């Protein structure tokens, strides 16, 4: 098989980028999309040219490193997979394929197809955890968690943090990402004590990092390699509303009988 590739090349964050056309030759249908790009890079190296920078690591759809917009769609034309799980048998021989990086204000381009997704880590640091110390935890079976509840939490927890949801959203919103994390913890009893603070802190961090707001268009769900449902966004909204009520209900000053009156 042969393909014509139009690949985004950009030397650094401050430089101008452009689409450059390359030929991919000797491609077999059983090759993965990334192996096809490996081949292009080996040939570029052979000609003394700089290879195309792109991210990848596990190549089995779980680490969340790979991040290509293929013909306008994050992770390419198939649903429920990452770029590394896309195989060339999916494309007609001789096709022209356009390859671009994730594009979002919160994901500055480092080089070519590599972007900086550390904003997602900072959103997690704002509250995407349960504060428990190592050691001293009670027996795992003390907490009974129904099968359905555990399965729903697992559906949310399966997010791989690739950022395709952001790349697909015209507002470059990370709402599905935040919704998945907030829901995972809110569904489980272990996450309850911190749920009020968590949802507010993570949404504030999302705004701070320059992600946009949810526009209810569901592109995020359509491109999510783990098919995480937008129902979790509804859950996020409920959590946020709940937090607003709970926080508004709290007295602004601690009302301790021992507090001195001013």
């Amino acid at each position, binding site marked *: 098989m042969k393909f014509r590739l139009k690949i985004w090349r950009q030397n*650094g964050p401050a430089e101008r980028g452009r689409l450059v056309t390359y030929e991919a030759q000797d491609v077999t249908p*059983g*090759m*993965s999309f990334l*192996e096809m790009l*490996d081949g292009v890079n*080996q040939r570029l*190296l*052979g000609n*003394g040219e*700089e*290879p195309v920078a792109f*991210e990848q*690591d*596990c*190549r*089995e*759809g*779980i*680490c*969340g*490193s790979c991040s290509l917009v293929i013909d306008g769609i994050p992770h390419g034309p198939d649903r429920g997979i990452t770029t590394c*799980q896309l*195989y060339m*048998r999916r494309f007609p021989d001789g096709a022209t394929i356009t390859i671009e990086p994730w594009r979002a204000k919160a994901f500055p381009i*480092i080089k070519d197809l590599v972007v*900086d*997704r*550390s904003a*997602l*880590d900072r959103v*997690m*640091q704002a509250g*995407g*955890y*349960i504060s*428990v110390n*190592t*050691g001293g*935890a*009670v*027996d*795992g*079976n003390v*907490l*009974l*968690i*129904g*099968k359905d509840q*555990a*399965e729903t*939490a*697992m559906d949310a*927890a*399966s997010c791989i*943090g690739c950022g395709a949801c952001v790349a697909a959203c015209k507002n470059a919103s990370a709402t599905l990402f935040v919704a998945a994390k907030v829901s*995972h*913890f809110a569904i*489980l009893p272990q*996450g309850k004590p911190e749920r009020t603070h968590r949802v507010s802190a993570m949404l504030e961090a999302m705004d701070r990092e320059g992600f946009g707001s949810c526009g209810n268009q569901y592109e995020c769900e359509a491109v999510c390699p783990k098919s995480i449902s937008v129902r979790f966004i509804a859950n996020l909204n409920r959590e946020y509303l709940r937090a607003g009520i709970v926080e508004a209900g709290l007295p602004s000053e601690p009302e301790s009988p021992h507090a001195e009156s001013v």
Partner: protein
Amino acid sequence: MRKLDPKIPSGPLESKWDRHRFSEKLVSPSNKRKLTVIVVGAGLAGASAASTLGQLGYQVECFCFQDSPRRAHSIAAQGGINAAKNYQDDGDSVGRLFYDTIKGGDFRSREANVYRLAQVSTQIIDQCVALGIPFAREYGGQLANRSFGGVQVSRTFYCRGQTGQQLLLGAYSALCWQIERGQVTMRPRTEMLDLIVVDGQARGIVVRDLVTGRLSVHTAHAVVLATGGYSNVYYLSTNASGSNVTATYRAWKQGAVFANPCFTQIHPTAIPPGDASQAKLTLMSESLRNDGRLWVPKTMVDHRSPGDIPEAERDYFLERRYPRFGNLAPRDIASRAVKAVCDEGRGVGSSGYGVYLDFAGVIGQQGTEVVRERYGNLFEMYHRITGEDAYHSPMRIYPAPHYTMGGLWVDYHLMSSIPGLFVVGEANFADHGANRLGASSLMQGLADGYFILPYTISHYLATAALPSVPEDHAESRAALHRVTSRITRIVSAKGRRTAAYFHREVGKLLWNHCGMSRHEAGLTMALTSIPTLREEFWKEVMVPGSGDAFNQELEYAGRVADYLEFAELLCHDALHRQESCGAHFREESQTGDGEPKRDDTRFAHVAAWEYRDGTVPLLHKEPLTFEFVQPTMRSYQ
């Protein structure tokens, strides 16, 4: 010559760890703030260690080469994590997990270490539940278990086929908390390229910022390596493409001894290799062997499609050779059995390197839906890669390099032969002996990081004299110089061949001569070929651009350069061990019917190798003594 003292506490096995913890010195809270610990790697072992050390009050600097600590390769572990909870009341206990692990490792690990691992296994599950990990549950709300290869109880906890992902995200969330609290400084996209040793103590590292190319020195009171295994030395493996040997290999060159490098696990069930462009092998979880049956045609070169081959003409070779464990025989044994039938010419698929993994039986008995619920994501994965539907025709599988039991030598404290250099997770050699059982790597990574290292490192920090080391110390400058000159040498070679070419070549050499089956002539041949290939690399390698910028090809070439040296160490070790044990099969040492023959009189030791400049590495032997179990012939027949 240094003496290797494993520092195993005396007394009864059951109370060694408790008594040891009590005798350890502690660091007071106010002093912890003044102590800095470097953790390299942010997988299960690294993230759990860094977060726990941060929680204890140490200042932690954590480094990883990925763009986020959440991407470390622990994330790809599918099947599960073992723990001696005995929730199924099927006869499990700490003692049984200990014995299974010692036996599974073919009596080539330390009793005291393995017992401690089995003891803390139960705490790991509790800790992970507290962190919010959504383990599979029964309808009544209790934790669910499944069984795994090499054992006869159900002690494996799991989150669908994504257990590694969930455990890593748990450790990562704990890490996020400590980053938010200011206890851990996270430095993603940095790669450790050398170790700084001052007056015999590990006191820092040299790292390269992978975005800017800038080299920098980081000093600390202790250094923890959690940098994973080296299966990628084989080129094709189930590991992520970034997984590499550089950090542990650089530490080796600075004096940390390397133990049992030839103990490399070849996992029996991966999707068989396709064409030459293939960049990785994809694992199909061992849990599939709970219900799938392995078979090949009884006759050679049978080209019929599997459905046309009647029962009587099929050889269910694992069930035939190992009736007691059947398809759940341990990994090393299953892999060799697969290789044996393929070498006989009975392999299936276009290359002949493959056997069937058949689910027709279970689908017939329990229906497609049950199988879909259990293994749906794996069947989907198989379909995407091969284009075949395993619900209707059997999967084809073949062994692939997967995990490395060998690693930097550590004592009971998880400290290497360099004081102040600790090694955790797959990067050390300690607990799995010559073969690791399924679902035990996650257990060991978290045991080391959450529950063992935080105690033992505190004792070191409380007792060692640790004068301050400025960043421009002579040893730091020397390490920086080593790194700079190496990078310069790589980018200035300006040859005609890519790093991938050399990686493929060294991988092929090792797979053929130091893979599932090894013999003296092959290993000797590899030992003469590797230096030639290495010389060619330094003359012919081609890396565009410079070291002062984002340069993925330079990162890769640096790792390949280390494989080209490390491969030799691996072969030296395989050549020295003239016995068959666990994953290490020497053709000279087998019984009449092809079963491995272990030699406890000559090889009941850890082979720990010391680097020597310009000559062959020096072998130290740490004898393995068995006080509590009797090494037996490891039989699964």
